[in-house]
């Protein structure tokens, strides 16, 4: 698919040079003389500031800014052509099926390409199991519904078990794994990185970016994100969030390479400082909240991270039953499924989800234990 590869790393519009935009020579020279070389430099100033800096009239400035904007603006397409492009170029119009029928239906086909899908839940609930199964699914040949490609698995907590993964494979796809050498080929497509410090983690990400295209990587798994990126949650001061760089980096990685990116997140217990209402809400109304939140946990990494992920799947355990809930997804109504873990990985007990209209879709229930989980 040469067309999609060329389209992938789009030239960064912000760094477009004014000298190459075809503006009238006179104004182009004035911009250069005042050290305004890129579109970013020019558009970071208001029109009045430009007037003062360049010593030209408003009409000229307006025309120049208008031309620069038109040239630096990314091209548009209709939603229809976007859909047709995806259907034509991508597997199942941009989805990786999880083989959990109910969940795939809710997600319009499976884990979407190009965005971050987050798995959040308490320890031992099954996040890593889910990741192992997805890795296998992505490496399967297309004749068996896989993406036929490599998988990069960033394992920050040394939880990756190849023995377990092969076990899942043998139990879920016996017809493939019984073939001589298949297990080796599948396992050979999964590349595991195990950074142990935050610096190593950042370096890992850079290396991944560089090799993403050349090696047909079809899935990126980060298990888990919270382990090596600041344990401090953004409360009040969200501006210098240490997570900031990683968040935008991974998001743009997903976007430009059009692959699914699955990230797991930890939980922590709800503290009194966690805000849950606005100034206009009467605090009297929320008296029930603290009590219902007693056994509830909260996703780590804070609010900016919660905004950055496109799909949030909450895994929790309540009265001995495990649930996987679609808490955030612009493609699905809020729905929960019961699941269990067996030799063949995660499986849903019922494919018909339970629709949840209230805030309980976001709540994360522990197994009755309070305190911090890792």
């Amino acid at each position, binding site marked *: 698919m040469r067309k999609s590869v060329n389209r992938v790393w789009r030239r*960064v*519009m*912000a760094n477009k040079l004014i000298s190459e935009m075809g503006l009238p020579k006179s104004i182009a020279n004035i911009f250069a003389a005042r050290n305004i070389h890129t579109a970013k430099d020019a*558009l*970071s100033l*208001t*029109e009045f500031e430009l*007037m003062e800096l*360049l*010593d030209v*009239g408003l*009409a000229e400035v307006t025309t120049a*800014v*208008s031309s620069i*904007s*038109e040239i*630096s*603006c*990314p091209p*548009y*397409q*209709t*939603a*229809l052509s976007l*859909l047709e492009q*995806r259907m034509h170029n991508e597997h199942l119009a941009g989805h990786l099926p999880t083989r959990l029928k109910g969940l795939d239906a809710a997600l*319009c086909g499976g884990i*979407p390409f190009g965005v971050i899908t987050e798995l959040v839940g308490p320890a031992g609930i099954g996040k890593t199991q889910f990741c192992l199964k997805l890795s296998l699914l992505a490496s399967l040949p297309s004749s068996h519904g896989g993406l036929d490609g490599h998988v990069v698995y960033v394992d920050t907590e040394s939880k990756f078990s190849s023995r377990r993964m092969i076990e899942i494979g043998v139990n879920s796809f016996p017809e493939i794994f019984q073939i001589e050498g298949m297990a080796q080929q599948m396992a050979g497509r999964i590349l595991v990185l195990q950074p142990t410090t935050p610096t190593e983690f950042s370096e890992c990400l850079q290396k991944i970016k560089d090799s993403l295209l050349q090696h047909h990587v079809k899935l990126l798994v980060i298990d888990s994100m919270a382990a090596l990126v600041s344990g401090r949650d953004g*409360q*009040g001061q*969200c501006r210098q969030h240490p997570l*900031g*760089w990683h968040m*935008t980096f991974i*998001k743009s990685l*997903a*976007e430009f390479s059009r692959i699914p990116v699955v990230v797991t997140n930890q939980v922590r217990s709800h503290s009194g400082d966690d*805000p*849950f*209402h*606005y*100034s*206009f809400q009467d605090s009297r*109304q929320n008296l029930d909240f603290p009590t219902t939140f007693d056994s509830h946990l909260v996703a780590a990494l804070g*609010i*900016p991270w*919660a*905004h950055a*992920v*496109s799909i*949030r799947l909450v895994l929790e355990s309540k009265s001995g039953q495990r649930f996987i809930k679609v*808490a*955030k997804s*612009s*493609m699905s*109504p809020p729905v929960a499924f019961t699941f269990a873990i067996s030799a063949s990985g995660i499986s849903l007990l019922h494919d018909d989800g339970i629709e949840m*209209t*209230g805030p309980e*879709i*976001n709540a994360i229930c522990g197994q009755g234990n309070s305190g911090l989980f890792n």
Partner: protein
Amino acid sequence: MEVSSLPISASHRAKLISAGYISISSLSSISPAHLARDLGISENEATGILKVASQRGGPERTIPSHHSIVDGAQTAWDMLHEEESCRRITTSCADLDDILGGGISCKEVTEIGGVPGIGKTQLGIQLAINVQIPLEYGGLAGKAVYIDTEGSFMVERVQQVAEACIKDMQEYDSFLRKDLPARQVNLQANDFLANIYYFRICSYTEQIAVINYLEKFISEHKDIKVVIVDSITFHFRQDFDDMALRTRLLGGMALKLMKLAKKFTLAVILLNQVTTKYSGGSFQLTLALGDSWSHACTNRIILYWNGNGRYAHIDKSPSIRSASAPYAVTGRGIRNLASNCKRVKLILRARLAHDEHICRSLI
């Protein structure tokens, strides 16, 4: 009128003032050659200055105002007529439409904010579809511009919402027009998708560029009736070291969008994220981008969780009362929370509300 307020270059302004030309009337009967000699500039530059001066001091304007008291002003009575006849975009949730006075206003900037997962993108997509509802069903038959800064726009979802909208229109037909000859809804979901212009923005520079470019784009596509920015926050939140610059840039964007809304009579919807602030002894939720931004938008709606459901609260609006209404996010899109509410009622209400406005304006 003062020469110092003319939009010309600083050095020209300085030369005019030091040569004694303080008011614009002093430039009214002077020739370019004379001015050029006085200021020590070329005749071309002098002609340019005189042109700007004549535009500013011009007596007649093309705006239909019959008042000589303040040039360019409109009377409140004229504005009332305009407001009444201005159509609104339904949200497909009757309760929400009610508190909004019929729907999202088509001449103003409306900011919608809320926690992740509350339904901001859902509402954005719903409005991008609803603006296209044909006139005979109470819609605007317009097109939409969707500016996506975060990659939240999922085409599959847009398809679902479009299909549900078509079903609603068919039900409306069969329910309320049973006495009239059968009418086919000739629209398909793909027709709706073809009318949404999608821009994917990856940096704040691109965001400023696209907002600047919209004026030209919309004058070439006059049937665009809604511009949705999802979200306005993302590229201004991370790694922005110079806060003063951020405030200036956001302010500039807000002004341009307001101008766009007014000039082309379209609705501008800005989706915003949420952050925390410390107030009154505890941490509270508030919309992102700071206090100066909170003044920038005309209307502000906050989507939040309350008890057992999702609610929308009108936090700020010059013309609508502050109120809250429940809504639901369903497989079909944004709908009323009450499950037994006939979908048809929603479209009918929107239509009646619009007709009511028209009747009132005729009084």
